């Protein structure tokens, strides 16, 4: 039992050290995923943000989705602020695929810049799932 405890203590020391020095901190709350089906049912009551590269966005995107990326954040945030209307109930973000992380990063930036009162969600499965779910 004692050797296992030593392993666990070592792991906790690594974890706490990483938490202390690493700037890429996870969110302890307010980072929510949404399934593509659920997101599509929200339709235009939500503001859709496409976090993919501009070329892929131009090749096809969810209706009325705006393109915003972390690499052009000021421009992207401006577009989001312009697109928000009084009837906007949520902000839905998606990126290239199930494994992509840009939608999560963008959602966190939006949550940080717009405030915690906004319901900001990331689509599980990314664009392929959104595309499949929005087909009639």
């Amino acid at each position, binding site marked *: 039992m004692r*050797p*296992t405890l*030593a*392993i*666990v203590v*070592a*792991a*906790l*020391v*690594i*974890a*706490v050290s*990483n*938490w202390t020095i*690493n700037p*890429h*901190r*996870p*969110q*302890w*709350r*307010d*980072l*929510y*995923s949404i399934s593509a089906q659920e997101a599509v049912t929200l339709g235009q009551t939500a503001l859709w943000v496409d976090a993919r590269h501009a070329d892929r966005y131009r090749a096809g995107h969810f209706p009325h989705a705006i393109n915003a990326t972390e690499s052009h954040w000021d421009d992207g945030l401006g577009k989001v602020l312009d697109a928000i209307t009084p009837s906007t109930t949520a902000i839905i973000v998606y990126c290239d*695929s*199930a*494994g*992509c*992380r840009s939608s*999560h*990063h963008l959602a*966190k930036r939006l949550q940080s810049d717009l405030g915690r009162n906004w319901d900001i969600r*990331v689509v*599980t*499965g990314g664009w*392929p*799932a959104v595309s499949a779910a929005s087909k009639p």
Partner: protein
Amino acid sequence: MIANVLGRMIISATFLYAAHDKIVRPDDFQSAILDYQIIGTWWSAALAYVLPGLELACGLAIWTNYLRQAALWTLLAMVFGFLLAVSSALLRGLPISCGCFGNAGHDLVLTFAVDIILLAILAFLVKSARAVPSRPTPST
């Protein structure tokens, strides 16, 4: 003996590599955990720090042959947990990547197969560990 050393090298290298990206980007790893839709945000954040810590500690322990048996049992339990999570995601048809090696997306079926292989190697190492004793821990 050779199989034992080879198995130890494979296991320690795999988990040291797996720990690296997750320690560098715990935020990315949390996103991967959340994609499984099993636990909530707070627990996913805690796991995003603790799991890579365990992987690193166990990887180093097996590499250095120090506290090896405890590290092997810990990894055995972890891989079993990973298998349950991956199986659950497969059964629910979640369109996600495993998140096992940081940003590199991996197919869940492939991940399931890799986990089974890791589980087999770990079971072999645990069983053969009695024949090859770990370096003694310092007596107090």
